[in-house]
């Protein structure tokens, strides 16, 4: 079991280190969305500071959603997924490792550069640590839960838009709690219950989503 | 019946409690719009199986015709 986990992780990380350009894409997209808001809404720092918690979360969600499509697609095209399915090693563990590595190379960098973006949107500095903490757990939820629709639509030729439609409603609960967390910190309210909820949700998704994603892979590759 | 006439029932004007005190407001358009939306969805749901079945029969007839040829 541990061997499966280790070898899948090593393979995933090696693959993503070979195509550094693709790793940069979600970050660039994240930055691009950030630029849109001052242009389209207002350049007023006070107004931007008010909407910044939600804007950062929406931008993270959208950037991660774009990269979800590639989570299983490359492996599907070169036939690695089929090898995973027929191998005697546990599929759930392999899927877990794949999602975790996907989060490491897409979700974590977004969390790490989010303070830069938050300052650009004049979010109060006191809220940045809490925002990063919330985003850390939020991106885990986004990656793990998003893996289920990604696995379901992997075999479809035009899966991109369908994936977006299926993923969005599943993300809304985390989005609402995460943005609320930052707002509560700004307003000096108690943040612990909301933070605990975020942690719990992300742990729950790590526990259950690999099973559902493994079932989904079997379904979409059964054709 | 609560309403005195048909036009009364269509307009549905009555006392409404607002922050400024009691006022007469007409709610007919809102209420009837709700029922129009609801009934149109029900009618769509009633009609759609009939239309689907008709389409299916037409397809089947065409398939049989092409098989015979």
């Amino acid at each position, binding site marked *: 079991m541990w061997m499966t986990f280790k070898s899948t992780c090593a393979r995933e990380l090696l693959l993503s280190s070979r195509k550094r350009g693709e790793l940069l894409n979600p970050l660039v997209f994240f930055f691009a969305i950030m630029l849109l808001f001052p242009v389209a809404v207002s350049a007023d720092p006070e107004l931007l500071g008010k909407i910044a918690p939600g804007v950062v979360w929406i931008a993270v969600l959208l950037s991660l959603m774009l990269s979800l499509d590639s989570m299983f697609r490359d492996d599907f095209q070169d036939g690695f997924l089929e090898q995973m399915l027929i191998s005697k090693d546990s599929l759930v563990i392999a899927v877990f490792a794949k999602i975790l590595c996907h989060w490491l190379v897409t979700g974590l960098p977004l969390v790490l550069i989010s303070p830069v973006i938050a300052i650009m949107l004049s979010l109060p500095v006191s809220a940045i640590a809490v925002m990063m903490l919330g985003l850390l757990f939020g991106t885990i939820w986004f990656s793990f839960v998003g893996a289920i629709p990604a696995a379901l639509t992997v075999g479809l030729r035009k899966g991109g838009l369908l994936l977006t439609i299926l993923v*969005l409603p599943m993300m809304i609960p985390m989005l609402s709690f995460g943005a609320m967390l930052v707002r509560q910190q700004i307003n000096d309210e108690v943040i612990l219950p909301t933070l605990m909820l975020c942690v719990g949700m992300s742990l729950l998704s790590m526990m259950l989503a690999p099973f559902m994603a493994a079932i*989904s892979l079997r379904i979409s590759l059964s054709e | 019946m*609560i309403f005195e006439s048909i036009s009364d029932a269509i307009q549905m004007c*009555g006392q409404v409690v607002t922050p400024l005190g009691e006022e007469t407001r007409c*709610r007919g358009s809102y209420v009837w719009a709700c029922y129009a939306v*609801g009934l149109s969805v029900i009618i769509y*749901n009633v009609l*759609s199986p009939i239309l*689907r079945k008709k389409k299916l029969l037409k397809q089947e007839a065409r398939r049989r015709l092409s098989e015979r040829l």
Partner: protein
Amino acid sequence: MLNTVWKTIVAWFLKWGSPKWFYEQSKIWSLISGWLATFMISWAFIYGIFYTPTEFKGHMSRALYIHVPSASLSMMMYFAIGIMAVIVLVWKMKMSSVMLKSTAQVGAGFAVVMFVTGAIWGTPAWGQGIVWDPRLLGDGILVLLYFGILAVYSAIDSYEQADKTVAVLAICTVFILVFIKYAPAMEGLGMQSIHQDSSNVYSGNDSAIDKSYQRPLLMGIFGFMVMGMSLVLRQARVEVLVRYRTAKWVQAIFDKELAKGK
């Protein structure tokens, strides 16, 4: 004695798993429930629109008798979809996937009715059509989920794969109903709720609302349930014909229908 009765009921129920039996038997049920629903709903609507007093929030409360039944029907149907999804994945019954699709098709319409009538009601009552409180957020997600399911059906050609895809999605998302149900009680989490909590309409004497509102509302809710059954059965009957169109018994039905057409 009780054991034999139970066994007879189970045997009767399991017969409905066969598409042929379903097609032969469901016509009478859809007709009965359809006419029953017609009478119940028209009584509820007419009583609700023309005969309820106006003390409760003015005339706008007359929209209650379509908003609440369609909301409860669409939520119930999503719950039913969740149950049927488990059956599709675990026991792989043929009819459960047919019913899953038909229920989603019917439920999506009523989710839209719930949302649109709520927005129309909110316009005069809250001064703004949509006020984003947790209840409305949950309802919006429900509409999205229904249309996501319909999108899967239109995107995937293989029936079996589409059914299983929808089943996995439904199992993952059915928990949203808990969120919607308890949304007005979530103020402890810092969410202000503007949508009022559901009144207890079912209890007898100590009901939270007056008898004159309770009667048409209950009749509307149960009428919508019966109508939902009728509409789902009607959709499922066509769906059976579409899916098993190459089967012998379906071809026989086609023979009859096409001969009638000429």
